[in-house]
């Protein structure tokens, strides 16, 4: 039961930390525009060369055409295959891609394991269900699981080696940078060892996911931690889930804000609109910058200061 308790606790931390990160972002004040082109929700013709609606005469009189399709067409290869790194830093991509894709496949495998457990629960448990869906899930779990583990091991070892051996990475790396990769590697290598030596069809993983959903009910007599490698894999995966949102590795999901709330945020401020209302709130904030020319005293607002002359010379 200790394994399950640890997993529950880690999932709880993951949810809490992720929610906090997202909450913090969505409650920040609106910032000035700082977009960078190409902005991929532009029309396909413009996004191809990095153009914007500002290229149109009297652009404020026109409806800004946005293309979700175009955005998705860009984002999917970016997320799945790390296209930006392929283009700009090919040698790093060769190891970063297997690393990230390995992680994605692990996430996908986790999802499949949960579906698998739900299918069992939906049948006459404890009788083992059969049928096409079950067979399909069994096959998919083995394919995604094994592929993810192999890629993840290659990627994390490659990243570790590159960071350690290349001065331009090593000179900027701290203990935590190595620790993070080693931590992920520990999961990948232990899970692969468990699969290779004791559980090639990932029966244990399926049973563990079932146990997680049922408060520890055993499936086919399974008990977590029957092999050392399997136990380490469960513990490291659980701890990783809790750890990732606490670190810069949260870029896995925070990239949404980096792209959509900054890099591609080209939303116009229209009179009487939501953005204008938010700006007006910001202009009432009272800065305390101390340089003479700012002339802030904690009582004057941004609006007061912006409409005054600098206090010097």
């Amino acid at each position: 039961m200790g394994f399950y308790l640890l997993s529950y606790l880690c999932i709880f931390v993951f949810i809490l930390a992720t929610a906090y990160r997202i909450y913090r972002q969505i409650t920040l004040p609106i910032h000035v525009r700082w977009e960078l082109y190409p902005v991929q929700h532009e029309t396909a013709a413009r996004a191809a060369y990095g153009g914007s609606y500002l290229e149109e005469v009297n652009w404020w009189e026109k409806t800004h055409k946005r293309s979700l399709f175009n955005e998705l067409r860009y984002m999917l290869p970016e997320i799945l295959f790390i296209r930006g790194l392929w283009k700009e830093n090919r040698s790093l991509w060769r190891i970063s891609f297997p690393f990230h894709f390995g992680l994605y496949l692990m996430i996908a495998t986790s999802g499949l394991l949960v579906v698998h457990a739900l299918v069992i629960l939906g049948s006459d448990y404890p009788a083992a269900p059969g049928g096409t869906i079950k067979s399909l899930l069994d096959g998919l779990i083995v394919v995604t699981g094994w592929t993810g583990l192999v890629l993840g091991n290659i990627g994390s070892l490659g990243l570790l080696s590159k960071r350690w051996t290349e001065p331009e990475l090593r000179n900027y790396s701290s203990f935590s940078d190595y620790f993070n990769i080693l931590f992920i590697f520990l999961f990948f290598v232990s899970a692969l060892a468990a699969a290779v030596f004791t559980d090639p069809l990932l029966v244990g993983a399926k049973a563990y996911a079932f146990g997680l959903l049922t408060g520890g009910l055993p499936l086919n007599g399974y008990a977590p931690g029957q092999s050392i490698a399997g136990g380490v894999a469960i513990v490291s995966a659980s701890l990783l889930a809790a750890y990732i949102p606490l670190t810069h590795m949260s870029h896995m999901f925070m990239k949404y804000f980096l792209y959509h709330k900054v890099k591609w945020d080209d939303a116009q401020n229209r009179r009487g609109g939501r953005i204008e209302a938010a700006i007006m709130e910001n202009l009432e904030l009272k800065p305390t910058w101390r340089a003479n020319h700012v002339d802030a005293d904690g009582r004057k607002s941004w609006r007061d200061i912006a409409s005054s002359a600098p206090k010097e010379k």
Partner: protein
Amino acid sequence: MNNQMKPSNLSKPSDCLCHIEPGELSPLPAPYEDFNQVTIPPLNPEKVKHLETSLDDTIAIGIPKPANKEEEEALVLRFLSGLKKLFEKENNWTFLQPLMLSMEHCAKCQTCSNACPVYEMSGRKDIYRPMFRAEVLRRIYKKYLKPGGKITAKLTGDIDLNWTTIARLAELSYRCTLCRRCATVCPIGVDNGLITHEIRKLFSQEMGIAPKELHDKGTVQHLRVGSSTGMNPLAAKDSVEFIQEEMEEITGYKVEIPWDVEGADILLIHNAGEMLAWPENVGAFATIFQAAGLSWTLSSEAVGYDAVNYGLWYDDVQFSRVAVRHADIARRLKVKKIVMGECGHAHKALTVIADRLLTGDLNLPRESAMVTLEEIVRSGKLQFDPLRNDFPVTLHDPCNMVRSMGIVEPQRRILRKIAPGFREMTPHGVENYCCGGGSGFAIMSGYNFAQWRNLVGSRKKFLQILNAFEGEPREAPKYVCAPCSNCKGAIRDIINYYHAEERSRLYYGGLVELIVNAMVDMKKPMIRFGDEPSWRS
């Protein structure tokens, strides 16, 4: 000298943290090989003996050395107080979210370094990496402002905070042109250019430290006198009167430049530097607008005749003051829209950044001159003879106008129509390289900073220009079209510094000069290559 550097080295006192030896800069091709052994001339020890000079071979700010330890400590505390304010919404609502995201998610993959022309051209000196100064700030922030930071710093990256760290960091924030090419290539979306911008702000808004060209002679003079050039309204009107006369002399076409026309369709705002350094640009705009029959005006009110907003590069407060003045002048003139002249940073400042500052009736429509000009050229109101521009032309993309605003094609469509010898640089558009004059560098030339800019900052652009004209005969005049005043200033300087007019017959100018040069109504050519007219009248 050790070429490899860690962020923690910034705090270790030495006379010069990074020196460029002869031959270390990226090589230039023939006939410029004689510059390959040239390096930045040493600072005059007498002139800088009271200034902080320990970063590299130049200084941009000229920070006075503190008189004693107590002063040093007070400055360190003030720096920390400013750093804290960068993360408070009351003080930094303008950039809080972008800053937090970029501070927290860098994977230190160095992809940004390969995109940076300063880093590449310097001979790959570590201190010029985009993430070097960003990483210094991240470490200081985590160690000195996060709870338990002094303990966790051993795990997440340590750095000492002392006066040396701070003085060098201030200078280092002026070795980046804020071109944001690094941010374009970051797979995560981290913007180390933004962090540089925020470092500059911290120093200016909290400590009153900024290059005098940007602050005292820049925004302060702009708001006090009317223009960062020092021209008051009367001088501006005199200059324009002179331009009117000159234009008729140059082209044989009489032009009237309107002032303060209430209710005009367009308020055109130039970078006032054009009036002094490139008056033909102001004259060319007037010629085109008049010939096209537009309803337009200039403003003779202080600040209203100078589109620059140097606050964009170092100080949100000064930025806001200038932007509000620009908008207020247009509001009172009751114009339908503001059109930004050929000035990249002014484009971005008033059109994009100020979009989240101006509210109510200050939020007037703003348009790029590239767009207005394209509309005129395509309208058929003007007749062109492209053969008048029958010489090699390449286009420089101002970062602020192109990468930061997405105004890419209008200027190209114009060139394709009026300049048969137009060819692109490689790369171009949103992937362009900065001219080296970005973020104020074009107007900063104290001490030996201009040499650093010409040798390091603008070197990539110079190589790009040479490459664009590869295969053209040396004796053929070649035109670099740079629709931005600061870019033109930087390109003028590299042409002069490398004697490129003599060696490669390189000339430069704006877009409007090319348009007027091709107008059939002009009796004489607008563009001349030295003494040689670009076409025979």
